[in-house]
């Protein structure tokens, strides 16, 4: 069950910040909030490993950082490997500390994919969080393997012709102890998953859909709405896989029934990146979403 955080129970208006404000994130960027919610659960004895990404910039420079825990910056492809070394040494030191990789979709699914897969296969004691903004955003919106079908980026001017790499399912096939998807629109669901992952030994993977106002071409006031619609339309299913056992979480539980899913156009129409999609493209994408849910239905039955 999702736990109600103490600051809500105690009706405190100002809650402690675990990831400090005044950082270099764009307006409407969910990353600082996602990190704040993560660190609230993970606690002080956490090391963040951050490969090249928007978060490299958000983490500040040599004069200061918004992070309240140690941060180790990483080359693009090596976060899971650096985290492996950190985790092994902290264990050798006898520390009860957690190592968290905080990586974008490009570092996870593209350039660093072999590293992630290697660390997962070795079942390194790491929590790997992929915050997925569906393109190389820090370099100015270039397509990644996690950019969805039909989306405009600077390197797919007519819209991407390939489908999004199904990374959470690929990680599930690594037979690691914990895999989950999450969304900033459902912070309690997200934090509950982080909490579960925190207490599990071995390689844990959380894939967080992270809407990007400038990259997805929507107004910076709509971040949560867009994130929410991704879930409500079924494009982004919320689930977790504990030791191979698959279960849908939160609102996604009811979305197995197709009639409960909003049409994907609700999600697409808010974002400029999908504005060039034809009726046919939208049909292709809707069919792909429905096919994914057929696959999920099988996973639920197992």
């Amino acid at each position, binding site marked *: 069950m999702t736990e109600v955080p103490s600051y809500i129970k105690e009706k405190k208006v100002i809650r402690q910040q675990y990831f400090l404000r005044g950082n270099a994130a764009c307006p409407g960027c969910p990353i600082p909030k996602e990190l704040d919610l993560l660190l609230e659960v993970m606690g*002080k*004895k956490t*090391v963040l*490993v951050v490969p090249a990404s928007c978060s*490299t*910039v958000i*983490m*500040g*420079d*040599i*004069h*200061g*950082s918004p*992070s*309240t*825990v*140690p*941060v*180790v*910056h*990483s*080359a693009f*492809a*090596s976060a*899971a*490997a*650096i*985290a*492996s*070394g*950190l*985790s*092994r*040494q*902290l*264990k*050798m*030191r006898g520390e009860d*500390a957690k190592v968290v990789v905080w990586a974008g979709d490009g570092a996870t699914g593209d350039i660093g994919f*072999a*590293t992630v*897969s*290697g660390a997962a*296969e*070795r079942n390194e004691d790491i929590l790997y969080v992929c915050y997925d903004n569906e393109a190389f955003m820090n370099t100015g919106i270039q397509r990644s393997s996690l950019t969805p079908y039909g989306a405009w980026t600077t390197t797919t001017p007519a819209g991407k012709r390939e489908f999004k790499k199904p990374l959470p399912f690929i990680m599930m096939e690594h037979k690691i102890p914990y895999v989950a998807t999450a969304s900033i629109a459902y912070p309690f669901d997200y934090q509950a998953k982080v909490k579960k992952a925190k207490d599990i030994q071995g390689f844990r993977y959380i894939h967080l859909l992270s809407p990007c106002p400038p990259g997805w071409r929507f107004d910076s006031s709509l971040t949560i709405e867009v994130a929410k619609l991704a879930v409500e339309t079924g494009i982004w299913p919320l689930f977790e896989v504990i030791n191979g056992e698959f279960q849908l979480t939160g609102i996604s539980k009811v979305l197995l029934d197709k009639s409960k899913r909003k049409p994907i156009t609700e999600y697409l129409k808010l974002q400029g990146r999908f504005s060039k999609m034809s009726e046919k493209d939208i049909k292709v994408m809707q069919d792909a979403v429905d096919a994914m849910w057929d696959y999920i239905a099988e996973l639920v039955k197992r």
Partner: protein
Amino acid sequence: MITVQKNVTAMVGNHAVAYAVKQAKPQVLAVFPITPQTTMLEKLAEYIDNGELKAELIKVEGEHSALAAVYGAAVAGARVFTATSSQGLLYMTEMIYWVGGERVPIVNAVATRALAEPWSIWDDHQDFFSKRDASWIMMMAENVQDAYDMTLQAFRISEDKRVILPVMMGFDGFILTHTMERLEILDDETVEKFLPPREFNLIDFNDPVNVGPIAAPDDYMKIKYEAMKAMEGSKEVIEEISKEYERISGRKQYGLIECYECEDADYVFVTAGAWTGDAREAVRRLRNEGKKVGVLKLRVIRPFPKERIKEALKGVQGVVVFDREYSYGYGGILANEIKSAIYNTGIEVMSVIAGIGGKDVRPLHFQKVMEDVLNGEKFEERWLND
């Protein structure tokens, strides 16, 4: 291991380095297999498996990750080690610069080997010399004993507070990695005193820091200036540690360079690595004929010991530099570095390119080149490729 007398044994280079690593007691290792380094990795796995070495060995999925993993461990305070060769060294290049830039103590043993294409598993120094600008200290062993001694010294140099730089120890693939030689080993207690537990650590949960963040141009250049100073300063530290090692081992150690029969020499070979032994043999033969020749061996490539080289070559008429690697479109790398070190001294520099891709080089080759030089045949660059 056949022990004939106390502390004297025979080992192949890979096992000698693995033995030194075991005695250095690292906490975390990460190694990916590549010929001709593999038998070292196997030996280390064996030491851990039978409990002789209490360390985590991360069996990574590639060399890029090997160096990344030991970097992560080193940041959290571990004494760490990795080893590679050739394509593997190239594959870890991004992390080589990363680690050099962050200035974290790490020891990396490089079994030198030619680079593809074409495929070659044989020895040359092209891989090693391609890393010369990455702010790593780079040492090169001449024989198995040297590889053992240098590995132990590398840990100490790397972790010295006045230095704090990664160290790469190069030793010739197959020629040293797979050749069994007499080896004097130190006892564990002596090594323990020589290598006290490491203090370097950047992960403190009560004082969290940002390791390796963005540096704006002014800050960036300051950091690089500090690295340059540390590299220059390390020359003195390397010599000091070498002297201390000489004391504990009872064997002569040579710091940055070693001179063999240089004192009254008219012409001197300049070498680095295993073929220094062949050069010594050639010098011995030529000396028997009354020829005044010697060898200058570079133990350390970075920092480049230009002051020591200049001192050692005082009074010499010319040098013949043997390069086992090449800067295409420029020339032999060592030859050009020597030229720059002795600029304006009037000493003639002749460059020989040999042993590329493992092509056999023997004392006779050294001898023949020197005889030509002594007979008045001068050249700028000569390839021994027929």
